């Protein structure tokens, strides 16, 4: 049994750390005070984890506690209760709830802190303050507990605050992490609200619910007819001015100095989320470093996100959840094995044997971990991907493969994050994206094992062939000595510059490969590639690139010879820059070299539009397979957005115009929604394939449901619904639907450039014709 569990959160809250949110606090306080007149509103606060929802609730509790009564009206008693650490059995929850309520109420009334938990004793003390009837309710609770009737015990506990009400105070409920109430065993989702409904409706008991995944809670609110009663309050980062005040306070406290000019940028970088600001200042303090400029701040940020801070998050989580050291050790080891070794965790017994504990202790550990959502295979926790720091964490985790399960969802989430931030941070202007696309395409086509070093090294190239004319060069055939085995690309990450922002991750491309066939850690090689945007590369540009490479090597723990550094020049380079690059072992290449290379290898040159595209026509050019991506999505509200984001990323490879991208995204959204709504699939999953070839993008949306009938149902017509298929036909050039008892596949084709454009009518192959009734 856990006593006074929510004390952890309360104890860790420090009022002096709280900045901003004046507007929110004022609305919430007003609503709480208005409860005395029966006109108090209830609120649902939502926002990404760590944004400060708990702090806001605790600050509100603090303010209400110290506000005192007025005008002879009863005082609001703020009762803070977090559901994040509840035990999943309703009996345990009801007991915990009662304990907390009694204890917090006594404290509020000025009673000394009880030395040991004694419900009857606390009831007697409350009676001294005019609260009657507590013991009777407690007795009833005892009866339900003894008979194991969890639901009745829960109803009893939740009604306690109302039944035992005195004339002096009335409760204001501050329910944190409310989404976890959906986890209660044997209690229907929304039952909690159902129990509390009459009190909420009365207006006498204002309630503030808070949670990071409001979807479930709002659905329950709607079911209970309470949605209109609650005001929705989305919590985002602090206001810019409050964020700056917070920097001032944090830096003063730790005697850390950050140049003032950097502070607004740093605020934006961290989404103006207070806890991240605190973490970064702690990181600077911990490392005792000088923050001289934006580059060093970015580096510190990156380090704190990837290594230091991440560990700190885990540490804090474990320390709070498992105060007992031995148990904590077991939980950490267990989690590491599950996450890092991708240990298949099929049964609770399997998990217990891994923990090496008694079943009781093991189950406590498991349930605590489960509550944090750490072991969820479907990674529901990724819903809050808008959080910038979490996005970086996911990137980090994905890179290292620690989120092995559900990797496709992680990938999609990362794509989503990057894209959502790209909207704010436009990449550098000019033709930079075009050049990046060229490099991407090159990397895709090249088998780097066969690339001669000489080709890639501008310095050596010039030294050997300067003034001799390019056509004299016989690349890679002159001496076998200069042929090197370069890594085969195993994965490529691109778009760092445009999407991650800031110089820290300022590479146009990072590629991973292996020296030999064996894909082992010892053989890992990383390529960092940059396209130089300046017309003339100067020495400081090389220096800057080298610094970033060093940081990358440091971060990845790579020996110096395993990080390949490559700069692609567009125009010219200073002699000093070439020398410096040579000194640092940076390969410098020029587009002329690349063109030469392309000719030699019989590849198309990308700056010119390839013949095949102009002539149009069906199949991709021979010898080149289309790029193919697959994604499996759960049929959940809004997961179609992930499909759209991935489509956007795929379309970016083909450098298609934004209107086409929009059409592809919309089409795939509609096809997904169709599958979600009409397939009645038992697996609850939809499989997506994206095929990218030079002339077209093909999208497949497949479900394993019971088939699909085109056309509007009467019900759909009544609700103005049933537009999906018609929209899809408008958005793409060709649509085919193959449907049957085994499920449905929707194939959509969008031709690129001057491909066959309009829809191809009458394509057989089992395609379902458009229903006659479908239309305006």
């Amino acid at each position: 049994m856990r006593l006074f569990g929510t004390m952890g959160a309360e104890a860790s809250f420090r009022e002096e750390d709280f900045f901003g949110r004046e507007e929110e606090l004022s609305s919430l306080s007003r609503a709480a005070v208005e409860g005395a007149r029966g006109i108090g509103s209830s609120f649902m606060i939502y926002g990404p984890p760590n944004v400060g929802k708990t702090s806001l609730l605790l600050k509100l509790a603090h303010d209400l506690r110290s506000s005192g009564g007025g005008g002879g009206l009863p005082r609001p008693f703020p009762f803070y209760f977090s559901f994040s650490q509840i035990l999943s059995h309703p009996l345990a929850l009801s007991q915990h709830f009662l304990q907390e309520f009694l204890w917090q109420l006594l404290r509020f009334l000025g009673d000394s802190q009880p030395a040991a938990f004694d419900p009857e004793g606390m009831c007697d003390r409350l009676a001294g303050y005019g609260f009657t009837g507590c013991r009777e309710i407690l007795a009833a609770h005892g009866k339900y507990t003894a008979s194991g009737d969890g639901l009745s015990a829960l109803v009893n506990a939740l009604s306690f605050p109302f039944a035992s009400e005195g004339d002096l105070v009335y409760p204001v409920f501050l329910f944190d992490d409310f989404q976890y109430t959906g986890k209660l065993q044997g209690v229907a989702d929304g039952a909690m609200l159902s129990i509390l409904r009459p009190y909420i409706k009365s207006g006498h008991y204002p309630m503030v619910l808070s949670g990071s995944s409001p979807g479930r809670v709002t659905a329950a609110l709607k079911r209970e007819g309470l949605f209109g009663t609650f005001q929705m309050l989305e919590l985002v980062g602090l206001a810019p001015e409050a964020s700056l005040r917070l920097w001032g306070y944090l830096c003063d406290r730790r005697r850390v100095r950050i140049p003032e000019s950097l502070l607004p940028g740093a605020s934006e970088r961290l989404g103006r989320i207070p806890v991240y600001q605190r973490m970064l200042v702690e990181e600077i303090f911990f490392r005792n470093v000088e923050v001289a400029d934006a580059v060093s701040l970015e580096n510190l940020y990156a380090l704190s996100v990837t290594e230091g801070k991440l560990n700190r998050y885990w540490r804090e989580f474990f320390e709070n959840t498992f105060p007992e050291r031995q148990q904590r050790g077991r939980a950490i080891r267990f989690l590491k094995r599950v996450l890092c070794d991708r240990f298949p965790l099929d049964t609770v017994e399997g998990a217990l044997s891994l923990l090496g504990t008694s079943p009781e202790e093991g189950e406590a550990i498991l349930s605590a971990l489960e509550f944090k959502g750490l072991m969820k295979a479907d990674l529901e926790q990724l819903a809050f991907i808008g959080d910038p720091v979490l996005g970086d964490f996911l990137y980090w985790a994905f890179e290292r493969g620690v989120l092995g399960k559900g990797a496709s969802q992680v990938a999609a989430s990362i794509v989503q994050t990057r894209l959502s931030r790209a909207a704010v941070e436009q990449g550098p202007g000019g033709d930079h994206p075009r050049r990046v696309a060229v490099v991407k395409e090159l990397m895709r086509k090249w088998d780097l094992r066969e690339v001669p070093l000489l080709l890639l090294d501008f310095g050596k190239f010039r030294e050997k062939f300067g003034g001799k004319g390019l056509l004299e060069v016989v690349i890679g055939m002159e001496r076998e000595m200069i042929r090197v085995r370069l890594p085969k690309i195993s994965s490529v990450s691109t778009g760092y510059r445009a999407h991650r922002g800031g110089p820290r991750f300022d590479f146009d491309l990072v590629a991973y490969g292996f020296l030999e066939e064996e894909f082992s850690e010892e053989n890992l090689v990383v390529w960092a590639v940059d396209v130089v945007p300046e017309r003339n590369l100067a020495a400081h540009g090389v220096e800057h690139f080298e610094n970033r490479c060093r940081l990358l090597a440091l971060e990845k723990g790579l020996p110096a010879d395993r990080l390949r550094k490559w700069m692609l020049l567009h125009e010219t380079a200073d002699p000093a820059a070439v020398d410096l690059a040579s000194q640092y072992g940076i390969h410098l290449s020029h587009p002329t070299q690349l063109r030469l290379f392309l000719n030699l290898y019989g590849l198309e040159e990308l700056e010119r539009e390839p013949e095949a595209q102009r002539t149009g026509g069906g199949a991709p050019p021979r010898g080149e397979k289309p790029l193919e991506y697959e994604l499996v999505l759960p049929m959940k509200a809004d997961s179609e957005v992930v499909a759209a984001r991935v489509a956007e990323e795929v379309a970016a490879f083909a450098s298609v115009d934004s209107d086409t991208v929009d059409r592809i995204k919309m089409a795939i959204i509609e096809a997904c929604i169709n599958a979600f709504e009409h397939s009645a699939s038992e697996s609850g999953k939809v499989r997506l394939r994206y095929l990218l070839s030079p002339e077209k993008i093909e999208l497949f949306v497949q479900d394993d449901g019971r088939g699909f009938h085109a056309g509007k149902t009467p019900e759909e017509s009544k609700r103005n619904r049933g537009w999906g298929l018609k929209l899809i036909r408008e958005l793409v050039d060709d649509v085919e639907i193959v449907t049957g008892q085994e499920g449905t596949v929707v194939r959509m084709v969008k031709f690129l450039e001057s491909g066959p454009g309009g829809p191809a009518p009458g394509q057989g192959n089992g395609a379902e014709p458009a229903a006659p009734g479908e239309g305006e």
Partner: protein
Amino acid sequence: MTGNLTIRTREEGETLVVYVAGYLNSLLGEEVEKVVREQFDAGGRRVLLHFGDTRLVNSIGISFIIGVVEKVMEREGRMAFCEVSRINRDLFQVTGLSKYVRSFDREKEALEYLAGGL
């Protein structure tokens, strides 16, 4: 993607400007419907839907907008759209919405139109 419920409104003269930001799906559609209904219940008759920050739209979201337009017509109100992206304009065209509601490039023009200036 559950944080899309971002309806912001403001009143400009007698017109309620509704900023439809984010992903126009059923949740957001429902919110739009709600604020417009409230405007009419309170006696207002002019509504401008501002789509400048609408990043994605789906057919369910559109069905709500159709519902809103029907309601406005039923109650003899005036309505306009502004800052509709190219793709969304196409979708409104396909669903017939553009036959009933005028779209303007700029909010100012739309407000003038609703105020009877155009």
